[in-house]
């Protein structure tokens, strides 16, 4: 057994390298598909909303700027149970997000059960569960789970969010 392994280790290594190359190539191809691009935008959104403990001002400013790039010139927010809905510009969204993040010492947003569909080649709908866990600056914790439906449109080769609907998991 030991002799056979020594003889064939090069073949085994070659197979492993080919496998790694195939997986890497598949992942790169997948990330360049429209679904991969939409997924990347939503991951960026989640990352921009999240705030690590001790995060500096520069990082916060960068995230504010980055999140403005994710939205179309006008984006509609619809909250099925709260009263904060309306249509906002990217700069308004960025400012509101900065105020929201300032309330927290640390906040983590997770995204699960993401389902992306394309009603037309330039429109996408993303359905997912958002889970927000955070600690406010005065110490209270927040743990909220919501269902979100995002509509995106391809504008100048980039997918921009045009509307977000937020609803409770159990909605009365």
């Amino acid at each position: 057994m030991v002799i056979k392994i020594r003889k064939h280790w090069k073949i085994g290594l070659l197979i492993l390298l080919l496998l790694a190359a195939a997986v890497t190539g598949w992942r790169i191809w997948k990330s360049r598909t429209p679904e991969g691009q939409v997924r990347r935008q939503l991951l960026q959104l989640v990352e921009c909303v999240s705030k690590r403990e001790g995060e500096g001002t520069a990082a916060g400013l960068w995230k504010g700027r980055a999140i403005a790039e994710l939205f179309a010139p006008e984006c509609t927010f619809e909250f099925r149970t709260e009263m904060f809905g309306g249509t906002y510009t990217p700069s308004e969204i960025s400012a509101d997000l900065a105020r929201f993040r300032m309330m927290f010492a640390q906040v983590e947003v997770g995204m699960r059960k993401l389902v992306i569909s394309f009603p037309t080649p330039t429109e996408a709908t993303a359905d997912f569960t958002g889970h927000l866990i955070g600690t406010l600056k005065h110490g209270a914790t927040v743990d909220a789970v919501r269902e979100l439906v995002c509509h995106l449109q391809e504008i100048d080769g980039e997918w921009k969010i045009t509307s977000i609907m937020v609803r409770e998991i159990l909605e009365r």
Partner: protein
Amino acid sequence: MRSIFSGIRNAWDVICSCHRSDDATADGTILNFFLPRLTRGFFIRLGVIVVLSALLFGVVLLPCFISGASMEPTVKSVGLTFCWRGKYLFGREPQRGDIVIIEFTDRVFFLKRVVALPGETVEFRNGELYVDGVRQNEPYVKFVCDWNMPPRKVDPGNYYVIGDNRSMPMEEHKFGQVTRSRIIGAPLW
């Protein structure tokens, strides 16, 4: 690596040798069960059991620890059950009166009862449930309820779920319409 594994196996055999017997009688068999010989067959059997258990309890029958009184007295507030994932597969849809398990997060589930189907209107008048204007007979609700809720239409693809214990104020009870995709199964008992 090979020598480390051999060392562990030898040490295990030394420890077990004072207890294990080659006797094929009942005592020897029981001791062999609890102190097995670390052979290739043993590890293959162990691997198969691990894989099957992971599939069974990770995919088909999810263990759920119950915590909360919203389904009393039908379901005790503390207990263990399993989520039978196959209940609503292959085209089977939840029916009125079914107790269902709803996925809230990856680790938290709700246990509720379906009271209204997609497109129906749900209403509470003085603690009595009305669906499409018809008062519902609910023998599983044992505690007094005084809820009032104006009519709500259940969206397509959604089911209206409520717990059986409606003795608390309505604001403290988690209930409402939920999308079909979140209903992942039913409790085994």
